[in-house]
C-alpha cells in the first residue's frame, strides 16, 4: 500500500482502503464534525483496527472474570498486575505476533518478544522470564501435508525460534518455557504467542495515564523510521491472500540491544520520581501511545513532530504517527524535572526529547512544520470506537458414526511400536533442540527450565536484600484441536491444564492471561467458536479461582478463506511460598514408588462407543490412525481442583520426589517423560485398575490426573493425603534401574521396550525432522 502524501483529499474510497467501513467512516466524521485529513484518517484506521480496538471481541471479553483478592491491575493497562506478597507485585501478559511471523518469521517473532517485554517494563517491572507458545503446520510430509509445505513450515519454525532466541538472549531475560504444537491448519497461519513476566515493588508500578496540565511529553529510545507502518491495521487485522508477500514492509525490525538500554534507562528514570506516566510505542506507535495516555488520563496532548527523532528524511506526519519502529517509549514527566529524566537517557546513550505537553480540553493535537497535521478528541478516538455484535451461528453438528472414529484393537496386543511412533512425533518429541537455543538461565533465577517440570519455576530475589523466599511458576497451554471439536470444552481444558501444570510444580495458581487466536470475526461460525471459548474460559477461571488479568485477541488467522482451529492459549501464574519446595518431573531414586492420582475418583465406565468417540480426539488417534474426530474428554472442574489442592499439599509437606501431570499421549507418555528426565532410571508399572480397552488405558487424555514418585517410607502419608483431598491414589509400580521400560495391562506387556530405544525415538526426532531435506 502506497504511503499517501498529506495533500491527498480523503474520500470514502481511501477510507475503505484503510480498512474502515462506511459506517466507521461516518462515525469518524461525526466525532470530528468534518472530514478527516489523510493523517487523521490514518490515525483512526489504526486505532479502530481490530488489533488495537478489539471491536469484535469487546462484547464477549467482558464476560471473563477479571477481579480477585490478589489482582492489583486487571485488563486495560499494558499488563496485568498481581500481588505476590512481601510488598512485591508481578506484572505479566501474553501477546501474539502471528501474521508478521508468517511474512517474516525471524523479525516477526523477535519483535513479538520485544513488544511484550516493553509492555512489562513500561509498568515499572523488570522482566525476569519469557515463555513462548508456538504453533506451526506439520514439519514432516504426510497424507495431509506435501513435502513442499512441510519444508516451508520447517523454515518458518527455524526463523521463529531464532527470532525468539535473538531477542531474549541479547536483552538478558531467560526464556524458561512454553510449548510447540503442530497442526495442518497452522501451515499458513503460524501462531507466535509470547508471555513475559516482571517483578516490581508494589509502590513502584507505573500506569499509562497522562496527568498534569503543562507536563512535558518526552519521546525516548530508537529513532522513528518507515518500518512497520500499518502493521496493526493491515497485517494483524486482515487475512492472508496470494499477495501476502507484499506485506513484508509492514513487518517491524527489532533491536534487543537498544531495548536493553531502554529498559535500564526507563527503570532508572522511574526511580528518580520525576516520571508521571509512561507507555511503550507498540502497535500503531506514536498514535496509540499519545491517544491512549491522554484518553486514560482525561487530558489532551499536543506534540510537535519536528521534534521526533527520525532516521529517514522527508517523513510525512502520516508516516511518523503510524510508524511501528521498535524500542521507543513515550513518557510524561513532572514539569520542571525534565532535565533529570533526559540526563538518565543520555547516560545510556539513548535519544530523549521533549516533543510536547499535556493539555487541558481532551484534544490531541499534532503539529508539523508549524501546521496542524491532526486534531482529534482523544477520548472518543480511544474509547468510542466501533463495537460490534458480530453475528454468531453454530456450524451444523458433525454427524459422526463409529466409522469416523478410532477403532480399538481387539485382544491383548503389544503397543510398543505405536508408542515409539508417538514419542517420535514432533508434537510429543523432545524440544531440546529448540530450547537449547534460548538462554534459559540468565539472571540466575531459573529453578526449573524447559522440560524440567510441568511449569517453569523462577525464584524471586528480594530487590533490596537479594534474599530468596518465594518462587513463581508459569505455564502456557492450549489445545486447538480440542477447541475445533468443542470450543467450550477445549477452552475449559486449556485453563485446567495450565492450572494443573502449575500445581504439579508445587505452586498455587493465582491468575491467568489469555491469548485468543481465531479466524475471521466476520464469519458467524468463527464468532460462535469465540463466544463458546469465552464461556469455557469464564466457567473454568471462576471455578479454579484464577481471574484473567489481561491478554490479547488475534483475529483473522486465516488464509484463502481457511481458518485455523480456534486456539485460546492460557498463561497461568502460580506462587510457591517456599522456593525450595518446587517440584520437577524426573524420577529420582531407584525403588521409589509410582502413584497414580486421579481427582475424579469416578469409576463410572463409559460405553465403548463413547470411548471411541472420546479417544478419537487424542494425540494417539491423530498420530497412529490419522483420525481427528469425536469429542474431547469430559471435564470435571471440581476434580481438577481437588487434585491441584492435593499436589500443593504434597509439595508443602515434602512428601513426593517428583510430580508430572498426565496430558498429551496419556499416562504412557507421562511415565516415559519421567524416565527421560531422570538420570538413567526406568520404570515397571501395571495399569490393571484402568478401564479397557488397552489404548484407552495407556493413552487417554482425561484430565485431573498426575503421577508422583514417592519414597516407600512416605507412601502411607501420601495415601492419607489423597483420602483427605478426595483424590483416588493407586500405586502402580516403581522406579527401577532396569534397561527395560515396561507397562503391563490385563496380564500382558502392553509396552515393553529397552528404555534406550524409546529415548532414541524421543530425543532426536525433532532435530532429524528439521535437518531433513
Amino acid at each position, binding site marked *: 500500500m502506497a504511503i499517501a502524501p498529506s495533500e491527498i483529499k480523503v474520500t470514502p474510497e481511501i477510507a475503505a482502503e484503510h480498512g474502515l467501513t462506511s459506517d466507521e467512516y461516518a462515525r469518524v466524521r461525526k466525532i470530528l464534525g468534518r472530514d478527516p485529513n489523510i493523517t487523521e484518517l490514518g490515525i483512526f484506521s489504526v486505532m479502530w483496527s481490530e488489533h488495537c480496538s478489539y471491536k469484535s471481541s469487546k462484547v464477549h471479553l467482558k464476560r471473563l472474570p477479571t477481579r480477585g483478592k490478589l489482582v492489583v491491575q486487571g485488563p486495560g493497562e499494558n499488563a496485568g498486575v498481581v500481588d505476590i506478597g512481601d510488598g512485591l507485585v508481578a506484572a505479566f501478559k501474553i501477546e501474539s505476533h502471528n501474521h508478521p511471523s508468517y511474512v517474516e518469521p525471524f523479525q516477526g517473532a523477535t519483535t513479538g518478544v520485544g513488544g511484550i517485554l516493553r509492555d512489562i517494563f513500561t509498568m515499572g517491572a523488570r522482566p525476569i522470564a519469557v515463555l513462548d507458545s508456538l504453533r506451526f503446520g506439520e514439519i514432516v510430509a504426510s497424507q495431509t501435508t506435501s513435502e513442499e509445505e512441510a519444508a516451508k513450515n520447517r523454515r518458518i519454525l527455524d526463523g521463529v525460534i*531464532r527470532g525468539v*532466541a535473538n531477542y531474549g*538472549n*541479547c*536483552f*538478558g531475560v531467560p526464556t524458561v518455557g512454553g510449548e510447540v504444537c503442530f497442526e495442518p491448519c497452522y501451515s499458513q497461519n503460524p501462531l507466535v504467542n509470547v508471555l513475559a513476566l516482571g517483578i516490581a515493588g508494589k509502590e513502584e508500578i507505573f500506569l499509562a495515564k497522562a496527568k498534569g496540565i503543562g507536563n512535558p511529553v518526552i519521546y525516548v529510545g530508537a529513532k522513528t523510521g518507515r518500518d512497520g507502518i500499518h502493521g496493526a491495521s493491515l497485517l494483524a487485522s486482515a487475512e492472508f491472500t496470494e499477495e501476502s508477500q507484499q506485506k513484508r514492509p509492514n513487518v517491524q525490525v527489532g*533491536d*534487543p*540491544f*537498544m531495548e*536493553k*538500554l531502554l529498559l535500564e534507562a526507563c527503570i532508572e528514570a522511574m526511580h528518580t520520581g520525576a516520571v508521571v506516566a509512561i507507555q511503550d510505542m507498540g502497535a500503531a506507535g506514536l498514535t496509540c501511545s499519545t491517544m491512549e495516555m491522554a484518553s486514560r488520563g482525561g487530558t489532551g496532548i499536543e506534540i510537535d513532530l519536528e521534534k521526533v527523532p527520525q532516521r529517514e528524511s522527508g517523513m510525512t506526519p502520516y508516516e511518523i504517527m503510524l510508524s511501528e519502529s521498535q524500542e521507543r517509549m513515550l513518557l510524561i514527566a513532572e514539569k520542571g524535572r525534565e532535565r533529570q529524566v533526559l540526563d538518565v537517557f543520555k547516560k*545510556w*546513550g539513548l535519544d530523549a526529547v521533549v516533543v510536547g505537553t499535556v493539555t487541558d480540553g481532551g484534544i490531541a493535537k499534532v503539529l508539523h512544520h508549524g501546521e496542524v497535521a491532526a486534531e482529534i478528541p482523544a477520548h472518543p478516538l480511544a474509547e468510542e470506537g466501533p463495537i460490534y455484535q458480530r453475528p454468531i451461528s453454530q456450524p451444523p453438528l458433525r454427524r459422526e458414526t463409529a466409522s469416523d472414529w478410532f477403532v480399538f484393537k481387539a485382544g491383548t496386543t503389544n503397543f510398543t511400536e505405536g508408542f515409539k511412533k508417538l514419542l517420535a512425533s514432533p508434537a510429543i518429541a523432545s524440544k531440546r533442540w529448540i530450547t*537449547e*537455543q*534460548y*538462554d*534459559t*538461565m*540468565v*539472571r*540466575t533465577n*531459573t*529453578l526449573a527450565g524447559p522440560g524440567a517440570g510441568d511449569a517453569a519455576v523462577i*525464584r524471586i*530475589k528480594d530487590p533490596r536484600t*537479594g*534474599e530468596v523466599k518465594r518462587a513463581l511458576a508459569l505455564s502456557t497451554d492450549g489445545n486447538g484441536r480440542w477447541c475445533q471439536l468443542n470450543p467450550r470444552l477445549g477452552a475449559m481444558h486449556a485453563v485446567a491444564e495450565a492450572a494443573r501444570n502449575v500445581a504439579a510444580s508445587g505452586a498455587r495458581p493465582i491468575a491467568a492471561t489469555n491469548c485468543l487466536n481465531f479466524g475471521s470475526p466476520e464469519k458467524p461460525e468463527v464468532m460462535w467458536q469465540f463466544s463458546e471459548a469465552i464461556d469455557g474460559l469464564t466457567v473454568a477461571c471462576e471455578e479454579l479461582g484464577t481471574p484473567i488479568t489481561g491478554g490479547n485477541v488475534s483475529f483473522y488467522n486465516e488464509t484463502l478463506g481457511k481458518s485455523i482451529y480456534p486456539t485460546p492459549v492460557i498463561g497461568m501464574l502460580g506462587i510457591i511460598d517456599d*522456593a*525450595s519446595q518446587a517440584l520437577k518431573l524426573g524420577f529420582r531414586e531407584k525403588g521409589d514408588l509410582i502413584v497414580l492420582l486421579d481427582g475424579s475418583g469416578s469409576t463410572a465406565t463409559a460405553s465403548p462407543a463413547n470411548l471411541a468417540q472420546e479417544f478419537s480426539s487424542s494425540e494417539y488417534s491423530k498420530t497412529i490412525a490419522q483420525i481427528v474426530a469425536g469429542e474431547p474428554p469430559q471435564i470435571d472442574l471440581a476434580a481438577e481442583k481437588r487434585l491441584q489442592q492435593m499436589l500443593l499439599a504434597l509439595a508443602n509437606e515434602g512428601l513426593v520426589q517428583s510430580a508430572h501431570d498426565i496430558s498429551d499421549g496419556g499416562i504412557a507418555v507421562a511415565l516415559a517423560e519421567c524416565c527421560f528426565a531422570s538420570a538413567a532410571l526406568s520404570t515397571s508399572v501395571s495399569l490393571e485398575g484402568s478401564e479397557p480397552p488397552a489404548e484407552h488405558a495407556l493413552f487417554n487424555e482425561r484430565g485431573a490426573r498426575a503421577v508422583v514418585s514417592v519414597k516407600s517410607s512416605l507412601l502411607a502419608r501420601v495415601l492419607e493425603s489423597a483420602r483427605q483431598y478426595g483424590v483416588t491414589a493407586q500405586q502402580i509400580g516403581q522406579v527401577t534401574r532396569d534397561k527395560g521400560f515396561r507397562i503391563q495391562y490385563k496380564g500382558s506387556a502392553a509396552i515393553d521396550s529397552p528404555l534406550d530405544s524409546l529415548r532414541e525415538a524421543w530425543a532426536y526426532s525433532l532435530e532429524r525432522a528439521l535437518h531433513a531435506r
Partner: protein
Amino acid sequence: MKFGVVVFPGSNCDHDAFYAIGNVLHKPVEFIWHQSEDLGDSDAVILPGGFAYGDYLRTGAIARFSPVMKSVEKFANGGGMVLGICNGFQILLEAGLLPGAMMRNAGLRYICRHVHMRVEQTDTPFTNAAKKGQILRIPIAHNDGNYSVEEATLDELERNRQIIFRYTTPEGSDDASGNPNGSMNNIAGICNRERNVAGLMPHPERAVESALNSADGLVIFQSMIEALVGAAKAPA
C-alpha cells in the same frame, strides 16, 4: 577485599556475577560503569557476560574501546586480577589482554546448556582452590565460543600451561563429543603468561548454588578470594 564488576551497555550477566560474589560468597562487590576513569578500590575485576554494544561489528570489538578499559589494562599490566566471563572473555581477546579470537560455534547456533570442563592448572589465582584434573559442571550460553588462534601461539599456550580449562565429556575424557562449540584443542578458558588475567566461556556465576543445578563454579571465585587474602598477607 573488593570485587569490581564492569558494566558495559548491553552487559546482562553483571547482576549474576554481583549476586554470586555478594550474596552467595558474602564478599564486598560493586559495579563499575564503563565510562569510569578508574576502578574504584577494586582488588579484582570481572568483565561479565552479555552482549556489550549488542555484539555490533564483532563481539567485544566496541567494548574494548570503552573508557574503563584503559584502567583495566593498566590494572592488568600492574599484576591486578582480571577475569573475563563469556562476553568478558571476548572483550579481553579484542583488547589484546589475552591471545586468540572467538569464532561462531561450529553448529552455527546459540547453545545454552551445562557442559563439563577440566581444571588443567592450579597455579593461577582462578584455580588455586581446585584440584588438578577436577571436572566442573558449568553452563555455557553463547553464539561465538569457538576459540581459535594461530598454531604458533597455540603451541606457546600449551607450552606455558596457559590453558586452564578444557571441555570434556561428563566422564572427563577428551572425546570431541564433550566440546560444545568446536573450540581448538577443546579450550574453554585460558590465562595470560603472567597468570593474572584469565578468560573462560562457561559461566561460573550460574553455578554457585545447588538449587541452580550445580555449585561447581564456586571453586573459581573461592580461588580468587584466597589469592586476594594471600596477597593481603604477603609482605609488601
